[in-house]
């Protein structure tokens, strides 16, 4: 087997060939500026507006509720900062969770420095926050609730519809970072009472550097970048036309047949999880067994550190990721794994596989074989395992 097995689709995905094909003209001959009134400009404008409609349709929104951004991180920053700034008179309290992506967490932390009060709700052992906890945290001064749709590390799905209902009843704006959920779970911003939603193209086979923010009609949105009149004056800068076209095509394809995709990925995921838990001792599943993204499997292996696991997997042609501090470049292991109660040393030894439609049952079996061999090898080198064996003789 010479082909590599890529199971890090939560980090990024391969651009779909149909998406690439849709983008190519806009990287070549069709180079007009959408703001220009002549033919080339109109052609580019039409392409951007087609993509806006594609994004809107995918989440049950109206095209004029969609704003294009340069990334999912930008959409998160924009949503949270805009709401905080424009409702400052009303209150200074924001509710979020302990397991958000850093694009949300660090934005909230920076607002704390500006005088906002942020509640970081704890999660249960599966990484879920409850709608009751959200409700109980709401105060007179609460202006925003921001809870991710699905966790990027452990795949746990949050009770978004219930939180939406709580937010609506309390009259508080509700933002969700749906970056990981698009194309994996059906999303309807209207029935779910979502006021703002972030997404990014590269997680569902679109291009990198192309995201969008949905903002419900009637919610005030501040300009994020000032300058020209692009994005109805809210985000200046000549549009990334190829990126936007690619995002539109990718979201259309990704949301076309979610049930079929989910069924296939769930089968791969559950096969991987059950085989690993069967074959590798001292392994624990992170996240909810069912209420999780269909393609996400995250498992902690005691006594070992994740980077070594990733390096050995890479040598065997397998690409996956870990929540270890050594691979993230920060001193602490994943805040998500710590929030669900994993000990530091367990969090260091985690492995996330995020499957995609190109993966097969054979891939799953090859990964299981590789992981069990490598874990045993690293444990043989581990002083923690040695101590454990001596203490449990």
């Amino acid at each position, binding site marked *: 087997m010479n082909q590599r097995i890529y199971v890090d689709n939560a980090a990024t995905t391969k651009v779909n060939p149909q998406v690439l094909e849709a983008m190519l003209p806009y990287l070549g001959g069709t180079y007009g500026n959408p703001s220009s009134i002549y033919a080339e400009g109109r052609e580019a404008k039409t392409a951007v507006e087609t993509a806006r409609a594609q994004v809107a349709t995918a989440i049950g929104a109206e095209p004029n509720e969609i704003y294009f951004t340069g990334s999912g991180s930008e959409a998160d920053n924009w949503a949270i900062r805009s709401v905080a700034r424009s409702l400052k008179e009303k209150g200074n309290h924001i509710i979020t969770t302990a397991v958000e992506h850093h694009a949300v967490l660090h934005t909230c932390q920076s607002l704390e420095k500006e005088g906002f009060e942020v509640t970081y709700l704890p999660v249960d052992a599966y990484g879920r926050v409850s709608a009751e906890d959200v409700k109980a945290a709401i105060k007179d001064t609460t202006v925003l609730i921001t809870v991710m749709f699905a966790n990027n590390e452990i795949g746990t799905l949050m009770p978004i519809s219930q939180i939406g209902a709580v937010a609506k009843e309390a009259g508080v704006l509700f933002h969700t970072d749906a970056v990981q959920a698009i194309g994996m779970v059906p999303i309807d911003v209207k029935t779910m009472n979502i006021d703002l939603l972030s997404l990014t193209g590269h997680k569902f086979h679109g291009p990198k550097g192309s995201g969008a923010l949905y903002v419900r009609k009637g919610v005030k949105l501040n300009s994020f970048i000032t300058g020209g009149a692009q994005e109805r004056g809210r985000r200046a800068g000549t549009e990334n036309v190829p990126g936007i076209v690619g995002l539109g095509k990718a979201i259309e394809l990704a949301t076309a047949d979610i049930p079929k995709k989910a069924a296939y990925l769930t089968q791969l995921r559950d096969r991987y999880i059950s085989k690993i838990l069967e074959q590798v001792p001292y392994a624990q599943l992170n996240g909810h067994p069912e209420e999780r993204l269909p393609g996400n499997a995250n498992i902690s292996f005691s006594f070992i550190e994740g980077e070594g696991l990733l390096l050995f997997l890479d040598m065997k042609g397998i690409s996956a990721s870990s929540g*270890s501090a050594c691979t*993230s470049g920060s*001193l602490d292991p994943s805040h998500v794994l710590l929030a669900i109660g994993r000990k*530091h040393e367990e969090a260091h030894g985690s492995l996330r596989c995020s499957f995609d439609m190109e993966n097969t049952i054979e891939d799953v079996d090859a990964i299981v074989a590789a992981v069990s061999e490598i874990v045993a090898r690293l444990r043989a080198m581990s*002083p923690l395992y*040695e101590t454990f064996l001596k203490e449990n003789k």
Partner: protein
Amino acid sequence: MYSEKVMDHFSNPRNVGEIEDANAVGEVGNPQCGDIMKIYMKINEETNIIEDVKFKTFGCGAAIATSSMATELVKGKSVDEALQMTNKAVVEALDGLPPVKLHCSVLAEEAVQSAIFNYYERKGLTPPAGLKCSGCCSSCHHHHDHEEE
């Protein structure tokens, strides 16, 4: 991001294991920060030569590679020579390490020193001035540069 030497020592680490009748054992690091190195030595009490050395490491690829290289560098050396081994020597022997991984080499230097400290302790001798006591280096004093995903 790692040199070929690092990858070689990571994937085929030298001197992995335990020494049953070791007369010097040092352990440094902390499971909280994700790195622990344990070094076993068999030191000739007459000549003070490190006749055998083995290690076990919980840590990243660089931690495993630096442990492996450090054991290679001190094997067959006298205790005094081994104490001269700096983390820089380990890094150079590995053809370099990424800046965020330099602390792994510091840990390797500390693990060797901690084992030798233990050797002096067991013999009831006063360790040379400046030599760190075994075990008390278990603090998260190293810092990775903070990067964003």
